[in-house]
């Protein structure tokens, strides 16, 4: 059993350092593995900036940005899931529970169905995510901007119910789009829905993804202490000094933005956002100051590994990465659950 106070901090730092190291290792592995295997010396040369080797272009221009994007996407999803599980005090929450990804997916599939270019599709997806977030805030405004001093538990369930309804609506719209889509485009649409990082292999995309990941992680971690209190009851948190309604507003939007970014970049990658916080929680407990960054690092690592497998096991074919995350994640999670 751990104590929350200073006594436990060195161990927390070790956990975070180990997870960061695992992240770097997974990205390095992703550089070496693929339809064309790159030996370690070639990878190291390329990373040093030596572009003379034949493999340098593949390593630096394709695999590195893709691995970094995968890390950012996995991290954003895990962060979003961890935030929502805490905010809604519901262990079943995942990034898709509020319907943000559903809205993004509807817009993205509309773009795909009309055969739009990749950047149009990503733009549509981002717009869909934002529009859904606005819709959520509008519909749940009574819960989010309550006139009562403390909206209390009704606020969390109000946001959750509104989100679940939006998700149900977008799911219906997605089915409709798939049913009506021309056969030629159906495959790419289904693939995108299952999660696909092929659209995130250029450097600017990777840079933006990493930047958003870092910003949202910093924002969320800044609210980790008050979130710890909210987890133990909102009335108690309020009387102990936490402006509960304000923290909830900020973090609902932050987690929705994280999901929106991730879905825009890589489609609706399933399971990472749900399982990463749970796995990390079994290791280090529920102190949000450690759990939020640790979940993000673990989620990023998990998605890099899943994506590396997805593009190598049946190369040159690629599997949908969202299927891989569940295929790896479910057994790992069940094993942890059994062991407890």
């Amino acid at each position, binding site marked *: *059993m*751990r*104590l*929350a*106070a*200073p*006594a436990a901090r060195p161990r927390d730092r070790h956990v975070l350092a180990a997870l960061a190291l695992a992240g770097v290792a997974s990205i390095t592995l992703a550089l070496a593995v693929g339809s064309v295997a790159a030996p370690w010396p070639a990878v190291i040369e390329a990373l040093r900036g030596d572009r003379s080797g034949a493999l340098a272009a593949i390593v630096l221009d394709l695999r590195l940005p893709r691995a970094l994007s995968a890390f950012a996407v996995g991290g954003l999803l895990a962060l979003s899931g961890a935030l929502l599980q805490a905010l809604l*005090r519901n*262990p079943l929450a995942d990034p898709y529970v509020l319907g943000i990804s559903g809205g993004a997916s509807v817009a993205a599939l509309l773009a795909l169905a009309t055969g739009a270019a990749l950047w149009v599709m990503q733009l549509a997806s981002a717009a869909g995510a934002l529009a859904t977030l606005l819709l959520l805030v509008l519909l749940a405004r009574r819960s989010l901007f309550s006139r*009562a*001093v*403390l909206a209390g538990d009704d606020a969390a369930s109000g946001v959750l119910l509104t989100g679940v309804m939006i998700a149900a609506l977008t799911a219906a719209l997605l089915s409709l789009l798939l049913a009506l889509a021309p056969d030629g485009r159906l495959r790419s649409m289904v693939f995108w829905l299952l999660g696909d990082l092929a659209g995130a292999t250029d450097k600017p995309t990777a840079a933006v993804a990493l930047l958003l990941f870092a910003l949202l992680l910093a924002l969320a971690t800044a609210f980790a*202490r*008050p979130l*710890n*209190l909210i*987890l*133990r*009851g*909102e*009335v*108690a*948190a*309020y*009387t*102990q*000094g*936490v*402006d509960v309604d304000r923290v909830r507003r900020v973090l609902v939007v932050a987690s929705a933005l994280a999901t929106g970014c991730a879905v825009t970049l890589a489609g609706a990658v399933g399971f990472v956002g749900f399982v990463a916080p749970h796995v990390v*929680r079994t290791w280090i*407990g*529920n*102190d949000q100051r450690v759990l939020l960054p640790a979940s993000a690092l673990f989620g990023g690592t998990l998605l890099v590994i899943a994506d590396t497998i997805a593009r190598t096991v049946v190369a040159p074919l690629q599997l949908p990465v969202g299927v891989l995350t569940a295929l790896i994640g479910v057994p790992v999670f069940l094993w942890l659950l059994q062991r407890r």
Partner: protein
Amino acid sequence: MSQASLLACTGVSLQVRGAREPRVLVRDLHWQVEAGERWVVLGPNGAGKSTLLAALAGVRQVDGGRVLYGGAPLSAIDVLAQATRRALVTDRWHDAFSASVLQTVLTARYRFGANDAAAVAAATAALDRLDCGHLAEADIRTLSRGERQRVAIAAALAQETPVVLLDEPIAHQDPRHQVLVLDALRAAPDRTVVASLHDVNGALRFATHALLLSGRGEWSAGPAREVLSAQRMSALFATPFVALHPAGSSGSAEVLVPQSPAARDSPPL
């Protein structure tokens, strides 16, 4: 008007909302709590004791009037600063996730900031005072209701606020711990306590002052030995109370015992 009481209500009204006709619980409450006093709030079920405590803590709005801390309206004090003025113990706990008892008490130190060197010592001392020292490493979800309630009281003490508000702090306690909790609250130095109780004799043991709520808007407040009389309790609870003086007790010590209501009032079996 007294100048800047530690805690005061000026013209406070409280209603039960939601009903078609709002029910008035407390009407135009003018009340001052001075440093070092220990108030007990008494009244029948549904009289508004918890509602009043919630309003005093600021987690519920008043339906009229103002709650003042040191002369400043509570609604004008920001949430973090409120946590330096008062702590609240409710009897509802949300322990959805695993955490140790000590961790749970440490959350009450939030107002002291992230680098609070005294946190563990203060939390441990508070747990010891509530006879929960041995539970420090236990999982909060494994506690009995009585133990959980004492941990919540320990947290309120660890928050180190001048005012401590408690909603039925001995509701789940066995006789030994009823005495222990009330004594711990009485012995807490420089704490001013407002607690709702159902136990009239617990109130006699603990309180310096008493606030009676009828649940129909009326209230009365005063020193405990005046207000906590058999006559007043009989009227408040619509149940006859008799005062007994146990043999060997000193002059003022008495025990108030409720009797069966008069035959015409008793419900058919």
